[in-house]
């Protein structure tokens, strides 16, 4: 049926006699198509009405979508078919007029700008300069405070966490972790005491506590005292893009970030072994106090999380 459209020479729409073939429907048998469309519309109408009914009686959500979607789809299909098969088949042609103006008109515009504008600006250079200066300064003055008041300056915030000398490590319920709590091979997420429910505690201070043996464990030179009784603590913020490094592969002793699969080896100071993370997870120096609680020796010795310009 669409071949009718392809094979005929296009004509201009206006002034066609009523019996022109271009004005006849594209369908070979319009009556039959009309009947099909009528059935489609009728079904669509019923479904759309059904949508109202379903809404009224608070039927399950899927019935709402089914009736509304089905109804509109049928009405749409019918309407497209109506346009395609029962309306004038065409094809019709319309001239394209170039919107380009004549060279004279272009020159006239340019002349108006240059002559009028030029003479005004040239003769009043001082005024023009002052006005531009005023607006320019306003622009700068308006934008900077606007930006500035959106948030605080970074200052040193990114360089520190809330771990301090002697801070107790607590789990998400706020319970202090004791040396007997973890079996070898298990992990728990800990926070500085008092911050386990705060945004900052969760986003910045979150730390993985993993127990890998029963003896003091040294991950790197200079960290001889950091892993008392086999407890190691690493920042849980991935050094790639900051996802929580939440998976522990016990056999391989790897911490795995689920976002882009960076893997950190807990035995050697969380040096990345796979994936896009560029740096080891910072290690938190721990000690076990007299009553057996796990506590921090100090803050992390470097910024936690992803890289940024000032990080150095």
């Amino acid at each position, binding site marked *: 049926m669409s071949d009718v459209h392809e094979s005929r020479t296009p004509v201009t729409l206006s002034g066609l006699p009523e019996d022109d073939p271009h004005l006849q429907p594209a369908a070979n048998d319009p009556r039959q198509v009309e009947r099909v469309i009528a059935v489609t519309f009728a079904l669509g109408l019923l479904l759309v009405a059904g949508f109202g009914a379903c809404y009224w009686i608070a039927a399950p959500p899927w019935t709402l979508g089914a009736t509304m979607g089905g109804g509109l789809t049928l009405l749409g299909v019918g*309407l497209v078919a109506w346009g395609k098969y029962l309306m004038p088949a065409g094809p019709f042609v319309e001239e394209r007029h170039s919107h380009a103006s004549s060279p004279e008109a272009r020159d006239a515009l340019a002349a108006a700008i240059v002559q009028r504008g030029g003479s005004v600006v040239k003769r009043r250079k001082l005024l023009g300069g002052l006005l531009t200066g005023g607006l320019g300064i306003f622009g700068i003055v308006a934008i900077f405070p606007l930006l500035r008041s959106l*948030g*605080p300056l970074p200052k040193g915030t990114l360089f520190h966490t809330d771990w301090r000398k002697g801070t107790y490590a607590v789990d*998400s319920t706020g319970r202090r972790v004791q040396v007997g709590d973890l079996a070898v091979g298990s992990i728990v997420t800990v926070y500085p005491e008092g911050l386990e429910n705060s945004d900052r505690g*969760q986003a910045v201070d979150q730390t993985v506590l993993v127990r890998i043996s029963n003896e003091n464990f040294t991950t790197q030179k200079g960290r001889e005292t950091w892993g008392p009784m086999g407890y190691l603590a690493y920042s849980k913020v991935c050094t790639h*893009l900051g996802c929580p490094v939440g998976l522990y592969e016990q056999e391989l002793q790897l911490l795995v970030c689920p976002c882009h699969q960076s893997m950190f080896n807990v035995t050697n100071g969380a040096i990345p072994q796979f994936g896009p993370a560029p740096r080891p997870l910072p290690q938190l120096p721990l000690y076990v106090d007299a009553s057996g609680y796990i506590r921090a020796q100090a803050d992390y010795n470097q910024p936690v999380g992803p890289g940024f310009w000032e*990080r*150095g």
Partner: protein
Amino acid sequence: MSITVPNTKRAKQAAKGPYGHLGTVLNELDDRLGVAEGGRSFMDKIFPDHWSFMLGEIALYSFVVIMVTGVFLTLYYIPSQALVTYHGSYLPLDGMRVTEAFASTVNLSFAVRAGLLMRQMHHWSCDIFIGSMVVHMARVFFTGAFRKPRELNWSIGLTLLTLAIVNGFLGYSLPDDLVSGTGIRIAYSIVLSIPLVGTYLGFFAFGGNFPGTSVIPRFFIMHVLIVPGIMLGLVGAHMFLLYRQKHTQFPGEGRTEKNVVGSPMFPVFMAKTTGFLLLVTGVTALLGAFAQINPIWQFGPYEASRISYAVQPDWYMAFLDGMLRIFPAWSFHSFGYTIPFEVTIPAVIFPGLLFGVAYAWPTLERLFTKDNEMHNLLDRPSNRPKRTAAGAAVLAMLSTLFLASSTDVIANFFHISLTTVLWSMRVLVLVSPFVAYPITYKICKEMQGIKGGGKRKTPNVVTRTEEGEYLASSAPVYVDDLPSELEPTEVPRYITSPPKEPDVAEPGARIVER
């Protein structure tokens, strides 16, 4: 003297003129606004028919669906990060401490009649919107519809695509669920990675270090007002330019650079396009009814130290995620500063380059081809092998990056090691454009060589030589049934190879040169 007005019904009718009430209304309108002439030429405006011109319409109508369903959602959604205890109709979450944003999203899904449908339709129509924009853009690219005079509309379209992706991300983040929160965290880290100003930008945008207290309200106002406001304006400009410059068309019978052939605005195009509006809405509603999307109550609320497995962004962000996954860990530290290239290159520089080249493409092509003509007739992609091959190369690369965003899923599924998957992805991403380019180029060239390539049917004549060999050659062409594509159109200036001669010219067979 008084004028007697006959008071019969017929006289009243006659006084109204032959068009009755409609005529009266139009007269009144025209007195004030002068709509008659413009209105008439609007009715007569011709729209070319080709299935591929429908892609833009799908995008437009899914935008309409997005806006309508979105307005519905704003009536129930609360953009606040304040913590509340959830007590609602979704029992598994009962008693949990969640943000108001999360609680209100769960509530509007379960407690508001038709709320779940509206939410799912909103999400689905966004996916359809961006998908149809991408395909529409590919159509415009491969057929050369972006050429003079339509370069500006190409840029507007690209800006719309960019904004749609940004707004998709913003909207996805609003429920403050576990998956989207992880997405925000990643976005924040990407901002941080920008040299020199990254930390400042991040702190200003989030009102402090992550997570800040203002992300949700700020994302909300961006998502429902600022970005859609700009988009609405741009959609208007896009349509206005389309209207003013008129639609492009494929070459064909009676079609030239100087005319438009197709169906008139009223009633044919109006019927079809309204039909599409209903269809798009209907299909979106069916998807919303039967295909669950983004069930945030299963993910749970966002907590910075929790994460779910197999984290993946919406499909239109996946190429970036893929790039982030496979890019090597090249951090740069020097002079006391860090440039996290492992993030900056894949997530800032790469998309910047990609979109930059796309914006510049019409200009670049004009510079290279030295073609400064107006073009209203579309190219067949095979007639522009270099452009087509370049487009195919980019698409190949983007699709491999899309695959790369699920390295872990692939590794699990095929039981191969992550390292193998990672390295094959790295190789594939680098190699795929260089494979796609020559193959596409070759295919285009072949298609040009085929007589009647790109046309419907061309009859062949089979001849038998004296030795009994059968040979096929193109049927003689009579002036009457000359393939219409070539006749009335200006011959493109840089078709690189002329159609091949038929292989066999039987002595005596009457072959008319095309």
